């Protein structure tokens, strides 16, 4: 239930500007890959190009390839909707559907894909909420509005919603930046558990977080405002934080830059 992602000379941008250019990166299945780098280096844009959500923005451009186990997700016959069913995503701010209950939020992906049978939905919701570590907290109020949950619970609900459709890959765009330290810890525990089943890519501003949860770290940077971001180096998290090969990486993780 996990696929390898490989990007080949991937460049993405908006209109005439390029946000991130020429990224070739391999993301291994059943591991956590952290993407770190200063603001504006295009790491979020890169992440959003992996499930073709980037193109939902008017004027978005993509060049190069994103291979999901050797299939190019940007091939002309590929429907972006199919890609997004395989590659789930969790966002910076918790964004549960406000008009739906806790149960309906988790069931939404399946329901909208045509699953109607109550037992199937119940099973999937139960499993997703357990996997997201939220089951115990919400078991007695599955029909309450999603907005009655705290911020950290809402984010775990969003993770449950994303994994309920059993994607192959889970993308996380700074999933803890709007949360307090305790909720952050809960999400980080969750990421560590989820990597047994999923390919996880997490964008984070928090280097301690990258060091704590990831196996592989990719460092992106940008040379100046208005310029395109680029991938500087990638390696095992241990190597990147202990002995980075590039000066730019060392400057960033030691706090001399960015």
């Amino acid at each position, binding site marked *: 239930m996990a696929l390898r992602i490989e990007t080949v000379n991937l460049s993405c941008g908006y209109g005439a500007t390029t946000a991130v250019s020429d990224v070739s990166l391999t993301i291994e299945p059943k591991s956590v890959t952290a993407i770190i780098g200063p603001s504006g280096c295009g790491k979020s844009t890169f992440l959003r190009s992996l499930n073709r959500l980037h193109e939902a923005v008017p004027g978005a451009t993509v060049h190069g390839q994103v291979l999901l186990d050797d299939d190019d997700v940007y091939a002309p016959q590929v429907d972006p909707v199919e890609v997004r069913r395989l590659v789930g995503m969790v966002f910076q701010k918790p964004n549960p559907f*406000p008009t739906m209950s806790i149960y309906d939020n988790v069931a939404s992906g399946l329901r909208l894909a045509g699953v109607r049978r109550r037992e199937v939905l119940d099973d999937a919701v139960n499993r997703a909420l357990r996997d997201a570590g939220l089951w115990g907290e919400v078991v007695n109020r599955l029909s309450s509005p999603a907005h009655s949950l705290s911020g950290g619970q809402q984010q775990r609900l969003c993770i449950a919603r*994303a994994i309920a459709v059993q994607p192959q890959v889970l993308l996380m765009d700074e999933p803890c930046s709007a949360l307090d330290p305790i909720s952050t810890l809960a999400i980080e525990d969750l990421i560590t558990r989820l990597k047994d089943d999923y390919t996880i890519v997490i964008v984070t501003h928090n280097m301690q977080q990258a060091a704590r949860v990831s196996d592989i770290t990719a460092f992106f940077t940008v040379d100046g405002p208005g310029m395109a971001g680029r991938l500087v180096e990638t390696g095992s998290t241990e190597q990147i934080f202990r002995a980075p090969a590039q000066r730019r990486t060392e400057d960033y993780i030691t706090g001399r830059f960015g």
Partner: protein
Amino acid sequence: MLLVALIPLFALLGFTITRGAHRLSPSFLTHSMAGIPPLSPGGGVYHAIIGTLEQVTLAAVLAVPLGLLVAVFLVETPLRGLTGPVRLLVDVMTGIPSIVTGLFVFSFWVVGLHRGFSGVAGSIALMILMLPVVIRSAEEMLRLVPQSLREAALALGLPRWRTTWSVVLPAARGGITTGVLLAIARVTGETAPLLLTVGNNAFINTNPLHGQQASLPVFVFNQTGSAFDVAVQRAWAGALALIAFVVVVYMTARLLTRSNAPR
């Protein structure tokens, strides 16, 4: 200054209530003008209430889906080049005088297509007047729906239309309903287009598809035009009934806004 600004409102309300209240009775609300000679004091607005309810409901049934479709087109589709001209057209529509709308439906539908006067002809005129109001308010409400919700739905693998239908529209439901009710309240008092499309009727005509029909504003207009006191009294009572109807719709809109505000 505030009080000065409110004088016209209270004067109007007070005037209508003092003139109309004594004539507004249960019997007035439950009887039509059938068989009431001009000089006779009886009669009521039952037939006009039925007409107004039918005409306005039908207008809303036509205007809401059409207006929502345009609003969704303006906000949710990536065809940036077309949204400018469409929005301009909607703005122009807002400014069209209601008598012109009535004339248009009169010459196009009533005469041109030989449909004759009927409730539905009036509904078409009212729909044209409602449309820009519905479109603009729904557009504003759809824009208030956070982009992050659309992204959440798209990232779950929902197609665009499904995202709009199952996530964006429900999130904007409260605001859209309020806008629709305000548009209804706004066209309920329209008189000029109804004179040219529905006409008037002293009898109860429950069929909006055929024949002339009464309505509250046209009832008020007709009774006011009479030289007899009993008719003028009926006009004031009818005006009060019309105001009451509009106030109820406004209040519903306010209540819905409060309980359903976008969160």
